[in-house]
């Protein structure tokens, strides 16, 4: 379907794509920008793509990705993780700080940023640790990371909660100096000591230590109040309970600067899957009940939850082929995210494709400060002439069974393995250059 003309490199004409699922149109990509949009555009030597029936969306932006490098290159590298991201339709990912060494200094975040530039599959925006070594005792050098070449704006101890109220308050206050945001993994540690699965009917039946909803909700409530008190920006990672949605809705009604994300797996899966004790379903926060799934979907639909973030957490096989309680927490998600959102939100009528673009590109780009200012890349823009050519093409009519063996991620711990999901990512463009064509890596 691709007619490549070598005469004009870096120039692509996408024929008949439907921006945000609307009326078909042509898009001409040139010099990293969407040069023209409209019907019947002339190729002028550009390579042509027949996009009949495909939906065009702005390139997806992930606020929560574990790329594992440096330290756990057996699970993922920046190269394999960003390749997986491109195949999922992403043009920018935010890499979490819990690497080894921890991304808590300018040196480490710059290293990760450079690895992302070298891989070239998507923009890698490192997230800096809030506390030195993720130890929860003193602040990391947040300003140095902000001023580094990586231009860090999002800070998180993800995997661990900044549970100390004073430290959380100081972090929220401190990052105001450089328009930063604290992304909190909300988990009261004393209430979740040894916790394995959502506390409820399933945990009682399986004899696994419970992870109660209140342990998430209590921290979110406290953090919303702290953010209001110091007038700073809080982002709540991977919201997983109905109660959390209520608290965030309330905080937003006050006009406080609170944003939130939900993972694809929390939009589709429930704690019943733990019944066979297969740790592929072990994740933190845990899979919750069907009532929580319903509330999360409603919260995402009405905008209480700003965005979808994958929490892509690759683990090698040996860390999952174990007893449940010693297995690692986490699931891969980059390569299935849009398809899961398609199933959970679009097929259910809760979001249209414009809504999907808003929750998976526009809003996460705003939260991640991908605003093109002072050297930051520009993502999450509407598809229009003059905008950066960060976009993806998606076939909504395709269906297929998820096979982790086919994934570009180095790890195979997908909870969607064997599930039939709608859709297929056909192509991804980063500043006008294809990273994915025909559903395969283009470079």
């Amino acid at each position, binding site marked *: 379907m691709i007619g490549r003309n070598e005469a004009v490199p870096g120039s692509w004409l996408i024929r008949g794509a439907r921006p945000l699922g609307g009326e078909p149109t042509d898009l001409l990509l040139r010099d990293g920008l969407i040069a023209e949009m409209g019907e019947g555009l002339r190729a002028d030597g550009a390579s042509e793509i027949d996009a009949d029936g495909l939906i065009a969306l702005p390139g997806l932006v992930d606020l929560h990705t574990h790329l594992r490098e440096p330290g756990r290159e057996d699970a993922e590298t920046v190269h394999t993780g960003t390749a997986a991201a491109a195949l999922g339709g992403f043009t920018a990912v935010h890499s979490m700080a819990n690497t080894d060494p921890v991304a808590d200094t300018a040196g480490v975040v710059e290293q990760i940023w450079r690895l992302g530039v070298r891989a070239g599959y998507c923009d890698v925006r490192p997230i800096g640790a809030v506390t030195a070594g993720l130890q929860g005792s003193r602040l990391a050098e947040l300003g140095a990371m902000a001023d580094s070449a990586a231009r860090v704006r999002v800070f998180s101890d993800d995997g661990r909660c900044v549970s100390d109220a004073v430290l959380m308050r100081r972090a929220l206050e401190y990052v105001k100096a450089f328009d930063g945001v604290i992304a909190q993994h909300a988990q009261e540690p004393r209430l979740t000591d040894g916790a394995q699965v959502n*506390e*409820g*009917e399933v*945990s*009682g*039946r*399986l*004899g*696994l*230590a*419970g992870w*109660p909803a209140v342990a998430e909700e209590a921290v979110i409530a406290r953090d919303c109040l702290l953010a209001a008190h110091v007038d700073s920006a809080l982002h709540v990672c991977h919201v997983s309970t109905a109660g959390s949605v209520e608290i965030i809705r309330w905080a937003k009604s006050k006009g406080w600067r609170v944003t939130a994300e939900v993972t694809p797996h929390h939009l589709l899966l429930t704690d019943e899957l733990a019944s*066979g*004790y*297969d740790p592929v379903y072990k994740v933190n926060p845990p899979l919750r009940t069907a009532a929580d799934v319903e509330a999360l979907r409603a919260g995402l639909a009405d905008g209480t939850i700003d965005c979808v973030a994958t929490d892509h957490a690759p683990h090698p096989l*040996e860390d999952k*082929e*174990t*007893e*449940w*309680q*010693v297995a690692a927490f986490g699931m891969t998600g980059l390569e299935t995210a849009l398809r899961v959102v398609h199933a959970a939100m679009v097929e259910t009528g809760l979001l249209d494709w414009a809504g999907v673009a808003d929750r998976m590109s526009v809003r996460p780009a705003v939260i991640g400060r991908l605003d093109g200012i002072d050297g930051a890349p520009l993502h999450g823009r509407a598809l229009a002439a003059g905008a950066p050519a960060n976009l993806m093409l998606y076939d909504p009519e395709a269906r297929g069974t998820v096979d982790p063996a086919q994934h570009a991620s180095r790890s195979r711990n997908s909870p969607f393995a064997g599930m039939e999901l709608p859709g297929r990512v056909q192509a991804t463009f980063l500043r006008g250059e294809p990273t994915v064509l025909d559903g395969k890596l283009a470079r």
Partner: protein
Amino acid sequence: MIRHLISAGDLSRDDALLILDTAEELDQVSDRSIRKLPTLRGRTVVNLFYEDSTRTRISFEAAAKRLSADVINFSAKGSSVAKGESLKDTALTLEAMGADAVVIRHGASGAPHRLAGWVRGSVVNAGDGTHEHPTQALLDAFTMRRRLGRLEGLRVTIVGDVLHSRVARSNVLLLRTLGAEVTLVAPPTLLPVAVSGWPCEVSYDFDAELPKADVVMMLRVQAERMNAAYFPTVREYSRRYGLDTRRMALLPEHAIVMHPGPMIRGVEIAADVADSPRSTIVEQVANGVSIRMAVLYLLLGSEGTR
């Protein structure tokens, strides 16, 4: 019959009764001068114990030996497990050795489920974490039926640390299947938060339950729980939830007192209650061998594979 015995909830009423009836027949062997049957000759039973539990291991070992099976005891201590070998690799090793059945005791809930995915032989759960202990529930039901003549309609009160008890989970499931009515008595801290969904009644008032009970089953309470604020002191626990002679006097004439062992005299049960004629504690141990013989016989003896 099912291929593995992992949860008491996997047993149909017919399966459970078949095990109890088979145990009655096999129990006769214990009274003979030669207490051995040739049934499982040439079959290999592995006792894979990741937790110290001498009484359960010996019970399974005696059961397998009385059926003439070859028994391999594989203890986590002093084996490759201590060097960090994974459960999967251990499972593959046992598989290569030709284990027909693996009896597993493990500190992690669900370990027998995982094992069953990696071996071809039958898996028998001898206690997994805070999940289940199905042969204990079977021997408890066997003991009740022997003493009281029936299970249907029997009122069984289970008292103690239900939250962390694999015995309680298996008993609730099995006794429900067999038509008994179970009431759990515990401080609210030691009950699962969603216990209202279990097929049983729940009470915080031990004294009120005693006059109605046909069976009182006491669970072990570990003193460490006190440190995690499950209850204030051992003394207060004993006063509210311990079975002493005053409480025993509130029971109907025919009622029996059970304990899965090992018991802590003076905490959940007074010494003179444990040693009273109502107590079935020693019988439970003897019945355990017969039940485990029946389980191994029915899982292994009826099919000719391997």
